[in-house]
């Protein structure tokens, strides 16, 4: 995904070579300014804040050394709960969404009639604003009058409390996130459509079974899309905030307290900005480490050239 295109300048006779750097810098200047103001400054400021006791009211950080980090690891049960919840959420969502989205994209790639209608339907949840979707889901999962338990009633099943019970809240959120993963379907569909038909025809002639064709042809040739979707899904789901903050607020009994929700609460509910900055830095290192691991182990297996 992030592999850079080969620099055309290194190929002979492609571009004139007497460009002044001034023009390039001229075009890139807005980014440099934004990078310094909205990325570099916050990056180092938040590192500094994480070593301070920083109250939002008076804006005067007081140096406390490693206190925030010590407290976080040794005296804050919510930190560990939220890490556990976020990992559970990201891992289950990754597995569920990847399997489901590949399955749907596969069906859509079979030359079905009404393709554009189906595609729109599976993409539709992406269009519904997060807040509107979340509030609708609260109403659907209402234990007494909601659609979900209403439909279960019709077949004689007593539905659970969904978002209101610690046993089901997390799974409800993952289910809803899979519902909203239509972007992935579109990416996988384009991957399926890129696979040359002739490969399957050749495999048919060789007498390959459907399962063999899936493992030997489909999966390897779909690997760029899988790689892209897996990386983005992990990064985004570890940062998930809005849906969860709206639907459960982290409850019940902290069962859906994701890392980002805990962080927001610390920063903007408890106004513990220094402590929240330490939380943010742990999150950054966690995501960075995970991304590097994925790149190391997966990117070598991705087949780009066809």
């Amino acid at each position: 995904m992030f592999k850079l295109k080969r620099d055309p300048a290194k190929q002979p006779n492609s571009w004139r070579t007497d460009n002044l750097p001034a023009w390039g810098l001229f075009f890139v200047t807005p980014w440099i300014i934004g990078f310094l103001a909205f990325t570099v400054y916050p990056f180092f400021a938040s590192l500094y804040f994480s070593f301070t006791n920083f109250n939002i009211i008076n804006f005067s950080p007081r140096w406390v050394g490693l206190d925030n980090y010590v407290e976080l690891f040794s005296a804050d049960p919510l930190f560990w709960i939220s890490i556990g919840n976020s990992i559970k959420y990201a891992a289950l969502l990754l597995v569920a969404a990847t399997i489901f989205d590949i399955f749907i994209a596969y069906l859509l790639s079979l030359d079905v009639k009404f393709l554009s209608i189906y595609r729109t339907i599976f993409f539709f949840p992406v269009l519904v604003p997060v807040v509107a979707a979340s509030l609708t889901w609260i109403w659907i999962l209402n234990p007494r009058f909601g659609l979900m338990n209403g439909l279960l009633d019709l077949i004689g099943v007593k539905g659970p409390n969904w978002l209101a019970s610690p046993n089901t809240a997390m799974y409800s959120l993952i289910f809803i996130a899979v519902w909203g993963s239509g972007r992935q379907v579109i990416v996988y569909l384009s991957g399926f459509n890129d696979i040359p038909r002739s490969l399957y025809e050749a495999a048919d002639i060789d007498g390959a079974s459907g399962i063999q064709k899936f493992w030997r042809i489909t999966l390897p040739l779909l690997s760029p899309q899988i790689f892209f979707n897996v990386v983005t899904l992990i990064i985004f789901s570890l940062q998930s905030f809005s849906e969860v903050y709206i639907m459960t607020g982290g409850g019940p009994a902290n069962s859906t307290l994701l890392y980002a929700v805990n962080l927001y609460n610390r920063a903007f509910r408890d106004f513990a900005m220094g402590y929240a900055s330490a939380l943010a830095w742990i999150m950054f290192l966690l995501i960075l480490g995970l991304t590097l691991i994925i790149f190391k182990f997966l990117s070598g297996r991705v087949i780009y050239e066809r």
Partner: protein
Amino acid sequence: MAVLQPAAPGRRAMSSEERGYFLRQRLKTVITHAILIVFGITFMLPFVWMISSSLKPNVDIFELPVRLIPKTYRIENYIDATNAIPFWQYLWNSTYYTIFATIGAVLSNTFIAYGFARVRWRGRNVLFIIVIATMMLPFQVRMIPLYVLFAKLGWLNSFLPLIVPNFFGNAFYIFLMRQFMMTLPKELDDAARIDGASEWGIFWRIAVPLSKPAILTVAIFEIIHTWHDFVGPLVYLRHPTKYTLSIGLRLYFTQYGAEWGLLMAAAAMFTIPMVIFFFFAQRSFIEGITLTGLKG
């Protein structure tokens, strides 16, 4: 999987093998559609339930067993919903935020991507790797210092913290547009240079017109992103007159906890502009997503 053309019927009688093949293909098609229809209906149900609830009078909302098609329709829910909270104000705030954030994203990213894609200069590739690397930085790391920065500038409770950064580029959009611009034929630039065009002239007269699909994709992504945005307004817009719809919708939830009809009507009115927009921009949108998932 390959769907071979079945032997043309009518020419001659099909052999039993051919008939078996033909039937298997038919069966496969039927099963595929059956699965897609079941999942498709499941996917649309939340939206149907939203619309259905938005049209029910309050007594019917809490009716058991549940009814997907309302017994009686109460269109007035939509009018009541706009009166229960400053709906039009919030709709305008959402629109205002979306318009300016999108203008900023389109202008800045086209400009910046050109510098990375079409002009060759020392340090370009190093800088581009830094652009990509910033995508790894979670928003949460920047959230608190940016809040402090904008508070000191006196920008809280205004749209400036949400709009101004958009005029300075976004790593994801730069990446997307750069990838697109690199596919444009370089001979055009060379020809223009021979004709004496300046670097600015090449950008404005060649790169921008040819990059329209990518520009459109960025605009579409940004419109959807801003219209949906919850975290940004939640952090920066604390004053009720400044709320966007994504923050304002929660007011029904606390004040009118039981008035699901009004809430669902408001949610529908919040969603429908996106649906209309999608039907106009569908093709570019799908192409854009495909473009971002592209190899290399």
